[in-house]
């Protein structure tokens, strides 16, 4: 993960000050912006050298494909078919003939160039406003060649930010639980992948049951539940070194862990004598604090981004509902009052919304409400789905779905899905195996 720091950002030309094309992401976009992603150009010498190092024939084209797929997956952009492009990639990058691009209805154009400097990969790109005939963004990145996919993601982040006015979520990873085998003996492993489903790595072997992994704010650590030695406890895993340790010394099951926004504490449930309460443990001084004290089940805690409040799930009213309290455990109040049961509240990184799972009349919903419980909005309905996790910009939710088994117990699967906060653009997130419990990282580079 330290390799993140390898990136050097160079502003070639400062971005133009007056706003030209913009994309509105606050509502479902029925007219995605037509954008031309010209293959990133490179000369034959660079190509043959890169092919030796990476075993990839035309790296520039591959990087632009990543950008194209990312943009398409947002539902906000419509990357145009390359067959219709009239101008050569290398010439477009220097001086696009805007008439040619507007002829194919492109409103924005992305061009670029790949070079190999000694052993470092250098990629520059430019974003052009076709109608205004202007360059509106130009950047270059240098990194080790094996980080090439991340360059595609970073370019997408910069384009998305320039055109929507909000940070992107492409140079990110998803940690999740990879699943296989029959339901009664499911094997579960921690897995991590890029946001677009590439570079999957398995972090545990599947010898013990693992559940609910979550990143810390710097994405270097993960907290999760492991049944190691048949003792369900919250663990901490350093992704880079692979070192794992138990969090605290609790005489019973600890579960439902998450990091505090500054990464210094873990908040979780501890179950004892049939009662689950919420606790925190400070990772530096190991001090444990009991936050809730109630004979009902209190679980699924999640901090507000400023760390001042915690939302959690409790059945103190008789059924599962969502509550908010101050982070010291005071001023507890129920915020969910709609019909049905509510679980897995998770605070938006923007601070204004809480996403949740709702069960009503045998159907499961992913929804959002304001932090006072008002303005409940259900985004998607399904046979089974739960555990939303926010994209770092708070615009997209990832969650998992489970399909019904037949009466023989077969035909069951678990998959990851994402949906925009608008309720539009629902799509399956591809994974190598069945998958559940996704958690979205923050932006890796910034």
């Amino acid at each position, binding site marked *: 993960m330290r390799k993140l720091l390898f990136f050097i950002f160079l502003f070639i030309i400062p971005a133009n000050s007056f706003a030209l094309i913009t994309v509105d992401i606050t509502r479902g976009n029925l007219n995605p912006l037509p954008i031309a992603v010209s293959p990133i150009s490179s000369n034959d010498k660079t190509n043959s050298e890169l092919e030796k190092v990476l075993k990839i024939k035309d790296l520039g084209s591959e990087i632009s494909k990543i950008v194209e797929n990312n943009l398409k997956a947002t539902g906000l952009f419509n990357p145009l078919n390359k067959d219709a492009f009239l101008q050569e990639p290398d010439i477009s990058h220097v001086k696009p003939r805007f008439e040619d691009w507007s002829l194919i209805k492109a409103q924005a154009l992305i061009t670029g160039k790949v070079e190999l400097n000694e052993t470092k990969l250098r990629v520059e790109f430019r974003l052009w406003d076709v109608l205004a005939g202007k360059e509106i963004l130009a950047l270059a990145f240098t990194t080790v060649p094996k980080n090439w996919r991340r360059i595609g993601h970073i370019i997408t982040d910069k384009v998305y930010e320039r055109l929507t006015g909000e940070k992107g979520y492409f140079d990110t990873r998803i940690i999740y639980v990879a699943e296989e085998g029959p339901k009664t003996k499911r094997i579960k492993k921690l897995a991590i992948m890029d946001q677009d489903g590439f570079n999957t790595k398995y972090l545990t072997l599947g010898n013990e049951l693992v559940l609910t992994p979550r990143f810390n704010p710097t994405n270097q650590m993960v907290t999760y539940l492991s049944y190691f030695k048949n003792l369900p406890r919250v663990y901490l895993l350093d992704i880079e070194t692979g070192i794992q340790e138990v969090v605290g010394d609790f005489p019973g099951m600890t579960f439902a862990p998450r990091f505090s926004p500054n990464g210094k504490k873990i908040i979780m449930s501890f179950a004892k004598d049939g009662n689950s309460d919420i606790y925190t443990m400070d990772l530096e001084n190991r001090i444990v604090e009991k936050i809730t004290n109630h004979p009902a*089940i209190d679980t699924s805690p999640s901090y507000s981004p400023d760390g001042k409040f915690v939302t959690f799930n409790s059945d103190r009213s008789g059924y599962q509902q969502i509550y908010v309290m101050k982070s010291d455990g005071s001023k507890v109040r129920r915020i969910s009052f709609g019909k049905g049961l509510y679980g897995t509240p998770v605070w938006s990184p923007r601070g204004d919304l809480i996403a949740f799972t709702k069960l009503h009349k045998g159907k499961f919903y992913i929804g959002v409400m304001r932090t006072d419980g008002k303005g409940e909005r259900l985004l998607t309905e399904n046979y089974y789905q739960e555990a939303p996790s926010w994209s770092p910009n708070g615009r997209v939710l990832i969650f998992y779905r489970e399909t019904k088994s037949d009466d023989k117990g077969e035909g069951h699967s678990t998959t990851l899905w994402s949906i925009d906060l608008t309720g539009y653009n629902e799509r399956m997130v591809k994974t190598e195996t069945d998958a559940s419990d996704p958690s979205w990282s923050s932006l890796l580079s910034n």
Partner: protein
Amino acid sequence: MILSKLYKNIFLVTLLSLILTACATQKKVAGPELQGDVYTGTDTVKYLADGVPDRVFFATNESILTTRSRETLRKQAAWLRKNSDVNVVIEGHADERGTREYNLALGERRANAAKDYLMTYGISSNRISVISYGKERPVDSGSNPLSWSKNRRSVTVKAN
């Protein structure tokens, strides 16, 4: 010819209604395995000893012990008193129709309901440990009310 066609039709209708009745009775056979939505059958049940069932079943979202469950647990307690060298683990489970984290807590609550009952019948708490599996280890992998009822359970397992 017309008459024979009519007879044929009557025969078919009779046959069809017989099949339908048969189906209806077959459905009724499955009925008594549920009381409310608590499983009362013996399909998945194992035995700690002759006549000592290893598990009790719960209603959706509940951890209350039914009359039948208490009867099972009294049998377990009697058997444990006779076999004082045996320690047990009580595993608490939930069905798949609930959020994962809440179900972990619910499984723990169910296992403890069984543990508490064994304790009131004289079994020392240091002979009983509990573990919750939430919805992670169903015994029946079907997605229907009967399968779910078999999975809402706490199971007493010999630990040594």
